[in-house]
């Protein structure tokens, strides 16, 4: 199954798609590596959040996604 990475909002344009499947496990370094430099730069910003298994991570650099997990990359929200 691996780990599914979801690119929300404008990140999907940068990623060229709204999701991608990668091998488990996935940590912060692995994530930055997989998404490429443009998105990695975005992920470095404090206002970009990461959720794993439906929970926003308090410390995204502590990411540790297991087989079957969904990792969502959450840029700043732009309002309802």
């Amino acid at each position, binding site marked *: 199954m691996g780990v599914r990475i979801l690119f929300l*909002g404008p990140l999907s344009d940068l990623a060229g798609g709204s999701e991608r499947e990668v091998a488990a496990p996935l940590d912060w370094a692995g994530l930055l590596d997989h998404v490429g430099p443009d998105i990695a730069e975005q992920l470095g910003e404090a206002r970009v959040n990461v*959720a794993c298994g439906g929970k926003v991570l308090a410390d995204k650099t502590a990411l540790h996604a297991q087989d079957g997990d*969904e990792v*969502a990359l*959450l840029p700043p*929200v*732009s*309002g*309802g």
Partner: protein
Amino acid sequence: MTLSTPRDVRLLDQGLSVGEALAAFNAAHGEAGGIVSFLGKVRPEGDVKALELAHYEPLTLPGMRELTEEAFERFSLDGALVWHRVGTMTPGDTIVLVAAAARHRRNAFEAADFLMDHLKSAAWFWKRERRSDGWHWIEPRGQDHADLARWK
């Protein structure tokens, strides 16, 4: 129309009948002294042809529920309705409908205002507009954050 009481929180992927929803909310809260509602619509602005709201299922609806719960306690509400559209809308379509029922009118006003400020700047939605030259993601507005700071 049947509402869940006292809180009715929904993500909707199609249009809604505002009159029916508010009539049902009013009927469900016959004992509240005051009911405030806010209805937000897509504004016909510049050459905006359509607006799309993306969300993230595992976060967006639970986040709206938590927000509603917070408003409930903070403003001693008798009832709340928090409905938000997702997907593609065109100018004139309803984006959001919020209603708050309370014993005192000040609480009902503040709760609706609080809910809207948070939905606009702290809920998990991403918005883009289609103009004549294609789709454009909307950046967060500074005003939204100032609105949010009012409640700290």
